[in-house]
């Protein structure tokens, strides 16, 4: 006959302890994942079919030595100038492209001594075995940035959006198929205007 007024109240004082326990468990067993990076495609491991001759003026050589210094077109260069130099080379449009067409969207200097057409221009990256990975990534990043800068410019002119945003939308699994189908030809057109021709030679052995 002690209590009458309904069920006794449950003591919730230990609820915080239980929640803390769970919290600490999740803090310990999980990580915040870094899930972004530079996407690259490796060349297939097969011998080249025929010797493709590329004119010297269509190749932009970037060398990184073991002291992480940059040699661009046989001149020493700081990393901060690399992006502008690459853009200048790719956007030159001094001659005619693969099918003999002129580059009518290039805004470069049209120097006959530099690249003929964006679809002929090749960037060649050579690194040493002792180059630091962080330097390599920084160089890769700048070269990708040069391509993205030009692609963004053309996407802005043709479609009024950035190329990088279009690409991110296209790769996003949440984007609906209809939107993807619409984006695909646009992305392909821009990629055709400035194809990413980034060749990596095997590193020099010292």
């Amino acid at each position, binding site marked *: 006959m002690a209590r009458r007024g309904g069920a006794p109240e449950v003591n919730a004082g230990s609820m915080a302890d239980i929640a803390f326990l769970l919290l600490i468990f999740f803090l310990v067993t999980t990580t915040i994942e*870094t899930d972004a990076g530079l996407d690259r495609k490796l*060349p297939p491991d097969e011998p080249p079919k025929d010797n493709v001759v590329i004119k010297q003026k269509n190749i932009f050589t970037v060398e990184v030595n073991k002291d992480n210094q940059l040699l661009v077109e046989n001149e020493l260069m700081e990393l901060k100038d690399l992006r502008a130099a690459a853009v200048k080379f790719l956007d030159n449009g001094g001659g005619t492209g693969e099918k003999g067409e002129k580059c009518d969207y290039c805004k470069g200097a049209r120097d006959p001594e530099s690249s003929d057409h964006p679809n002929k221009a090749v960037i060649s990256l050579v690194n040493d075995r002792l180059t630091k990975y962080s330097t390599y990534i*920084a160089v890769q*990043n700048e070269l990708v940035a040069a391509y993205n800068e030009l692609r963004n410019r053309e996407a802005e002119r043709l479609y009024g959006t950035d190329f990088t945003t279009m690409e991110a939308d296209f790769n996003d699994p949440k984007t609906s198929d209809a939107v993807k189908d619409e984006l695909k030809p646009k992305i392909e057109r821009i990629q055709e205007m400035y194809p990413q021709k980034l060749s990596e030679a095997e590193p020099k052995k010292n």
Partner: protein
Amino acid sequence: MSKFNKKKSGDLPAISTASLPDIVFMLLFFFMTVTVMKDSSLMVQNELPYADQIQKLDKKDRVIYIYAGKPSERYQSTYGTSAKIQLNDKFADVSDVANYILAERAKKREELQNVLTTALKVDEETNMGLVSDIKQELRKVNALKINYTTKKGDAFRNMQK
């Protein structure tokens, strides 16, 4: 008189802790949603370099991870300080990479086997020689789509160290 005395007795009123569980649960749900379960414990130092032209990695079931870097401090006495490759939970040799990729690829569903990406999580102090060796191995087994996993940040920060 006693009325006034009572007011003076200097005990602070107890702070109500009734909302404490709510706060902790909020934190708990935050961590449950933004983090993922660890699937392999890192045995190498893994300080990733910075880059800003990054693309998001594909869904997790389409990615094969390769870690590389110096062994972490507690393994340095056994494995030395030169950079090593970690596959799943073990240190491995360059020659093991190809077999690892083939084994991982065979584990995935058939429709995913052609769209796999290999994520290279390489410590920023590593020399390119090791990374090139890994890339050669990947070319041999035709795992051509790779992703250099990086932290988001200005690439020039890589050069300052």
